[in-house]
């Protein structure tokens, strides 16, 4: 009797252990499935706009080389913004949609729209990001002023 009980106990333990293994294996099956992509960083739209704006300036400069001296520093500002933001966030350099902009007036409108994005991002940002995003918002406003 005693011996049988021991055997039963051991069998039960084995069964329990087997179930445990089966459960872990189940987890492993799910682990192999593609994970949903992580939510993009809240600053990703600010970074995307910085790159899109820089590209828009490049196209306007290419079409109107006489504007190069005036516009090149503004394009450089946007690339500086993108570089600083890329240091903060885990980004996969998503190709921003091209801005359909072919004039200084179009650039100005794009700057004002991008300023709004950065203002909203500044409002929502944690304390350690507020200064950088706020500065980017202010810079976009100064660009709109410079394009008047």
């Amino acid at each position, binding site marked *: 009797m005693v011996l049988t009980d021991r055997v039963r106990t051991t069998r039960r333990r084995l069964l329990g252990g087997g179930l445990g293994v089966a459960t872990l294996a189940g987890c492993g099956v799910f682990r192999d499935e593609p994970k949903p992509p992580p939510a993009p960083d809240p600053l990703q739209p600010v970074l995307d706009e910085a790159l899109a704006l820089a590209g828009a300036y490049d196209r306007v400069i290419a079409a109107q080389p006489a504007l190069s*001296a005036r516009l090149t520093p503004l394009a*450089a500002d946007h690339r500086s913004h993108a570089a600083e933001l890329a240091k903060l966030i885990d980004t996969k350099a998503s190709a921003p949609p091209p801005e359909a902009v072919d004039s200084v007036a179009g650039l100005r409108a794009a700057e004002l729209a991008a300023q709004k994005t950065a*203002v909203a991002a500044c*409002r929502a940002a944690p304390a350690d990001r507020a200064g950088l995003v*706020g500065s980017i918002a202010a*810079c976009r*406003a*100064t660009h709109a*002023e*410079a394009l008047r």
Partner: protein
Amino acid sequence: MNEQVAAALAAEEAAIYAYGIIGVELPESAQVTEARAAEQAHRDRRDYLVGKMDQPRTSPAGYRMPFPVTDRGTALKLAIHVEDGVAQAWRPVLAVTQDADRMTALAAMTDAAVRATRWRRLAAVSPATMAFPGWAE
């Protein structure tokens, strides 16, 4: 927060004082009007900040301008200098505020940066913008 607010207040006080000098040296009435509008904007920001201070402030000390203002060129240079200084004083306020107060701080920093750009254009300083307003170059 009080430390950052006090620094912004000091910058606004300095700007108000400086615009009194700047206005005298600007030759064109349009620019004088712009300087007066800027001075009034800084007075409004000062009043807002005074309301945010936990403790009564001490009256501001006398100001020393960073260089003598003797003509249009030095007046514009001082205007650029004070607006850059105001933007730099407001930036740290962003990190210690939230919601509406942070938006006010951002508006104050942005307005100062935009005025600095406007004065740079009038002074034919190029480039008229900087990548990170509010950060010391």
